[in-house]
């Protein structure tokens, strides 16, 4: 088995899965029905990407696990998502800032992945990058509106940026498996995307009249399975049904 490829695919797939599940938590709770549908659309894009990536990971692993098996029958410490995407939804500002940061990162990453030496991954990325372009634009639009909105919306946006910024080092962390895949031309090094990311984020924040967050001591560990307590609580809800009825189909 190509262990590095399997692990890298799980990292990619888990980001999509966990963020998709988080966005699903908004269903029926968003400020208006239109925003509710928008967030659900983003969520379903993410779940779709997760399915493709984790199915492929299961095939690479070769022990009969598919996306469902990987999604529903692993515990939190076996997840390899970045800490950013597991953060609780909080208010609308928190959710939008989290999504903006992820989508800006992911749009650049998947753009590069669409030229991967691994054909299957390139194909998945080419489909995903179209969706992510919309995600990045949609969330950037809200960043500008709320940053440049009322005193209340502005301070919530700035708080959310400061809150999430500590997870950016973790988002860009290249672990051993990822570096191995990068050396083989399968993935780009995340670190190599960071300068452009900060530039892109800075441009949107400038338009929104928001300040770039102050440098903070980053919290890392997501790619190594060291997660915040939020992830296991989220997974408990996501996994309870298939765990209780492992053979159920629908």
């Amino acid at each position: 088995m190509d262990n590095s490829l399997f692990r890298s695919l799980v990292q990619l797939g888990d980001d999509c899965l966990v963020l998709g599940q988080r966005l699903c938590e908004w269903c029926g709770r968003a400020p208006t029905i239109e925003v509710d549908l928008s967030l659900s659309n983003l969520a379903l894009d993410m779940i779709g990407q997760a399915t493709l990536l984790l199915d492929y990971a299961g095939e690479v692993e070769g022990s009969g696990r598919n996306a469902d098996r990987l999604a529903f029958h692993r515990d939190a410490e076996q997840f390899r998502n970045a800490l950013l995407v597991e953060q609780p939804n909080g208010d609308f500002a928190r959710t939008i800032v989290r999504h903006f940061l992820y989508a800006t990162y992911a749009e650049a990453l998947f753009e590069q992945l669409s030229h991967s030496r691994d054909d299957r991954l390139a194909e998945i990325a080419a489909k995903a990058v179209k969706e992510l372009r919309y995600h990045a634009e949609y969330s950037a639009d809200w960043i500008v509106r709320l940053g440049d909105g009322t005193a209340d919306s502005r301070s919530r946006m700035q708080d959310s940026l400061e809150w999430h910024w500590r997870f950016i080092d973790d988002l860009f962390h290249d672990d051993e498996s990822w570096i191995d895949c990068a050396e083989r031309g399968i993935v780009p090094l995340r670190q190599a995307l960071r300068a452009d990311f900060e530039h892109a984020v800075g441009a949107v924040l400038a338009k929104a009249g928001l300040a770039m967050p102050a440098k903070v001591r980053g919290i890392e560990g997501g790619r190594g399975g060291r997660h915040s307590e939020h992830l296991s609580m989220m997974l408990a809800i996501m996994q309870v049904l298939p765990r209780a009825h492992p053979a159920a189909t629908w």
Partner: protein
Amino acid sequence: MKDWPLWEVFVRARGGLEHRHAGSVHAPDAEMALRHARDTYTRRLEGVSVWVARSADIVASDGAKSEQLFDPAASKIYRHPSFYVLPESVNHM
């Protein structure tokens, strides 16, 4: 968000077809109205192009005057071009 105006949404299903009224969305401005229209009415591959227009900008006929506006057309069957004998070479007109 309660003060978001209403926008009418028109979707073109495929190239060459006309935009048709699909429904309406609330949004603070035109750009967001387009996003909401996209997310609300083209989720299942319904369209390739979307128009939005402020509902308030649409001028509608007065429902109370529908008798005088539309009933007179009912007795004018000769306005349909159905009284001509077509040459046989014209099949589908």
